[in-house]
């Protein structure tokens, strides 16, 4: 059983825990500048959106070159985004995105 990624988990924990602990230990740290608080608030949506977009749109070919792709993953993302925006229900968006993908593949309409 591989344990390699436990090291990655530890590193991720090392950069996550201070953001939870330091303000609790350091009174006054809540006085972040306005732009700092705004930036922190915007980082989440931007990183997550970039992760989704790059995952479905950019693939690396056999020669190691990144190339643009359009596939069923796009549709799954669109379905998930639309449902989460409409119903504010992440699980519903996720399940429907997966279901649409499975159905299209079962019908032979997607790879």
């Amino acid at each position: 059983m591989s344990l390699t990624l436990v090291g990655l988990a530890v590193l991720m924990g090392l950069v996550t825990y201070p953001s939870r602990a330091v303000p609790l230990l350091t009174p006054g740290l809540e006085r972040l500048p306005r732009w700092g608080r705004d930036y922190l608030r915007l980082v989440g949506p931007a990183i997550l959106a970039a992760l989704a977009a790059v995952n479905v749109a950019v693939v690396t070919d056999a020669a190691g070159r990144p190339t643009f792709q359009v596939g069923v993953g796009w549709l799954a993302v669109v379905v998930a985004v639309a449902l989460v925006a409409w119903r504010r229900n992440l699980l519903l968006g996720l399940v429907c995105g997966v279901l649409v993908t499975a159905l299209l593949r079962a019908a032979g309409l997607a790879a």
Partner: protein
Amino acid sequence: MAAFGIVYGLAARQAGFSAVEALAMSVIVLAGASQFAAVGLVAGGASWPAIVLLTFFLNARHILYSASLAPWFQGRSRSERLASAYCLADETFALSLAHFRRLGRFDRRGYWMAGGFVVVPWIASTGVGFTAGQLIPDPTRLGIDVVFPAAMAGLAVGLISGRREVVAALAGVLLGIGVGLVLGPTVGIVAGGLGGPLVGLAAPGASDDGRPSDGGGERDAEAEAATVPALGLP
């Protein structure tokens, strides 16, 4: 919470994590969005430094939670604060802040109950999801491979509460794909994730009315933290 833990366990298994690796991430990191992100990045061959950098920024929102709870922890010991920080996630923040406000004081048992509602189901459901993955012979046929991008996109929408978030997310998408096609997917994700917010900051916010900010303070931090919607993840 449990449903997402199951999905995370499934996705981690699909990405090649061992059971110990998937569970270690849930125990040590305890931050759903960054764990989902790490699963996708590991599967895509991203470097560890890139994953750790994105984790730092993705989880930096905890600073807002921690800062807004800090006044309630006044007088508590350093060791108690250090221990309490472990389970400070979206739901812990929302539940405990509401509880403290209702009581008008800090309540240790209430805080740890809120933390328990996050930690126990998340870790247990990770194990359930990973185990359930063994029973699925062909995950791709069932569409399990699109769980990651769909979850990331859905989480991004869940975090949007105004015009600036929309602009930051769209800029993240465009920068991510554009830079990713030139310099590779990992660089694209980092560029989109860190450059998107800069574009978002340049956009007019819904609350911009020309008045100067009062410069911060705990009420500001609490108000900012309260604008982060709960996602159903730790």
